[in-house]
C-alpha cells in the first residue's frame, strides 16, 4: 500500500504545482514508484511543469467517468524511471469529478504506487475537497507572506475538521536576506501561527521560473538552491533525518516583520484616543 499525499495551500501561486512536481520526481529518483495527480481541473498545469504537456491524451475526468482505465490515462515520464503523471482535464470544470470518484481513484493508485502525490487546486471549494478526500497525509505549502499564511491557516482549520491528522508545512520562496533585514516573516513567525510540523523551507530561486518554462524540473539543475531544498524534503518524506544547513531563516529578535507591520498598521496614524 502506498501513501497518498496531497499538496495544498489555500492561496494560489505559492508553489503547489512546483512542489508536487519536484517532490514526485525526487521520490521516483529514490526508487519509489510515484505518480503525480493533477486535480486542478480546468486549469491544469502540472503536465507543463513536468514537461509532459505534449503527451496528454486522456485525463482524470475520463477516468472518473469510466471511459478509460488509469493505465491508459497516466503518462510515464521518459527520463525518470518510476515516475508517472495523471493529468487534469483542461476543458471541464471542477464538478466533473466527485469526492467519491477521487476516493476510488486514490485507492486504486495506492495499490499500484508507493507514493501518490496529489496537486490540489487553489481555493477551498469542490476542487479542494476532491483533492483531500483520499489523502493519508497533507503538505500545506505557504510563502512567508501574511496573505498566504492566513489562507494556509484557514486550510489547516478545514483539514483538522475533516479529521486529517498528518499535516506538514513547507515554507516556499523564503528570502533569507529580507528576513535578516526584518522585511519578511521568518520561519519562526510562520510556524508560530500555523503550529504544524515543519517539513522544510525552500529558498526563493529565480531558476525555478526558467525550469518551469522549459518543463525541466528544478531538482535536475545542480545550480538550483530550490531544487536542492526539494530533494532534502523528499528525503525527509522517506523518513530520513536530514538536518538543514544552518537555518538561513533565523529570526532577528524584535525586528521581525510582524512587528514592523504592526507599527505600520497601528503605530503611524492611529487616531484612536486609547
Amino acid at each position, binding site marked *: 500500500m502506498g501513501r497518498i499525499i496531497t499538496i495544498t495551500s489555500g492561496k494560489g501561486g505559492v508553489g503547489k504545482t512546483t512542489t508536487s512536481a519536484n517532490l514526485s520526481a525526487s521520490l521516483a529518483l529514490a526508487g519509489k514508484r510515484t505518480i503525480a495527480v493533477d486535480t486542478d481541473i480546468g486549469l491544469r498545469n502540472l503536465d507543463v511543469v513536468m514537461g509532459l504537456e505534449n503527451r496528454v491524451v486522456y485525463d482524470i475526468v475520463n477516468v472518473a467517468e469510466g471511459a478509460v482505465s488509469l493505465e491508459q490515462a497516466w503518462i510515464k515520464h521518459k527520463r525518470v524511471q518510476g515516475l508517472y503523471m495523471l493529468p487534469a482535464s483542461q476543458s471541464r470544470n471542477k464538478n466533473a469529478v466527485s*469526492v467519491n470518484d477521487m476516493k476510488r481513484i486514490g485507492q486504486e493508485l495506492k495499490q499500484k504506487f508507493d507514493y501518490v502525490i496529489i496537486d490540489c487546486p487553489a481555493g*477551498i471549494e469542490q476542487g479542494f*475537497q476532491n483533492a483531500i478526500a483520499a489523502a493519508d497525509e497533507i503538505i500545506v505549502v505557504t510563502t512567508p507572506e*501574511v496573505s498566504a499564511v*492566513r*489562507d494556509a*491557516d*484557514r486550510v*489547516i*482549520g*478545514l483539514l*483538522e*475538521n*475533516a*479529521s486529517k491528522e498528518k499535516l506538514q508545512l513547507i515554507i516556499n520562496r523564503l528570502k533569507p536576506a529580507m528576513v535578516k533585514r526584518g522585511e519578511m516573516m521568518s520561519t519562526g513567525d510562520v510556524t508560530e*501561527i500555523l*503550529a504544524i510540523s515543519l517539513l522544510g523551507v525552500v529558498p526563493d530561486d529565480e531558476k525555478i521560473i526558467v525550469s518551469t518554462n522549459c518543463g525541466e524540473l528544478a531538482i535536475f539543475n545542480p545550480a538550483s538552491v530550490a531544487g536542492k531544498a526539494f530533494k532534502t524534503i523528499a528525503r525527509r518524506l522517506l523518513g530520513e533525518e536530514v538536518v538543514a544547513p544552518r537555518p538561513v531563516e533565523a529570526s532577528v*529578535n*524584535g525586528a*521581525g516583520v510582524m*512587528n514592523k507591520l*504592526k*507599527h505600520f*498598521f*497601528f*503605530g503611524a496614524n*492611529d*487616531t*484612536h*484616543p*486609547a
Partner: protein
Amino acid sequence: MSDSPIQFKGVNGDLMLSLDWGEPFEQLIDHLEAQLKSSDGFFRGSKVILEIGPRLLTLADLDALRDILARFGMTFHALCGMGPDEKIKPASLATLLAPRIPDSSRDSESDQISHAEKVLDATTAEVFPTASRGRAGARLPRTSVKIQPGDAHAPAKTLLVKRTLRSGQVINYAGNIILIGDINPGAEVVAGHDILIWGSLRGTASAGAAGDPLASIFALHMAPSQLRIGDHITRSPRENLLAAEGHDALPEVAKIENGTIVVEAWPTNKKSIPLKMNLRSSSAEAADKPSRE
C-alpha cells in the same frame, strides 16, 4: 478517516459533536437520531457542543437539531463553526444557546422559536439604539448577540475551549469564554460576557456582545486585529505593541473606560481589579466597576 458523518468527542465533560461537512443536512439529522437511539440513553444529561464546520445552517435546521437533542435528554450548549454564516445571525444563536432552553417544556419552546425569529429580524436593524458611544466607538450590528433580558442577573456560564482558533473559525457563546490556545488572524470569538485567552490573541474578540459594558478581554499576548466590547470597537492600541514584541509580551486586559476601549497590563499593580469573571453575580455588578483614579 471515520465512516460516520458525526463524530462524538468528550470535551471537558461536555460532548462535542462534529458534523462531517460534506454530508447533506437531512442525512446528518437521520444519522444523529439513529446513533442516539442506539446509544441507549448513554448521553442523557450531557451538554452538547456542536461543531458545524463551514456549513450553513438555517434556524429551522438548528431547531431540528435541538429537538432531537431534547428528545434524548441532551441540551444544546454551544455552537462552533467557521466562516461568516449569513444564515444564522448571532442573535438567534444566543437565543438558542441561552441556558433556559434545556429545561423548557414543549409549549414554551414554540415561544422561543418565534422569539428567536424576532431577534433575528432585529439584528438587521439597530439593536442598541441607546448605548453610549466613545470617540473611536462604532456601532456593531453584526456580531451583537442579544440575550434574554432575564439573563443579565444570572451568573454567566463559561465555555472552556482547548484549541487554537484558525482563520475563518468562529466561536459564539452567550456566557464567558475561556480559550486555551491562540486566536489566529481571521478567527473570531464572540462572548456574551468576558473572554479570557490563555495564548495569543491575533484575530478578533468581541466581549459583552449582549451589550455588557463591564465585560473584559484578557489575553496572555494581546495583538488583535480588532477588539469589540459592548458596542465599542477598536484596533490594537499603540502602547500594546511595544509589549507585544517577540515572546516577552505581558498579559493584558481590555475593557471600556470613559467610553472607549483601553488595554492595560494584567494584573495591574495598582489596587487589584477584581476578576469579574469569578465575581459576576446578581449583586456584584455594581461593585465590579474598577475604582482607580
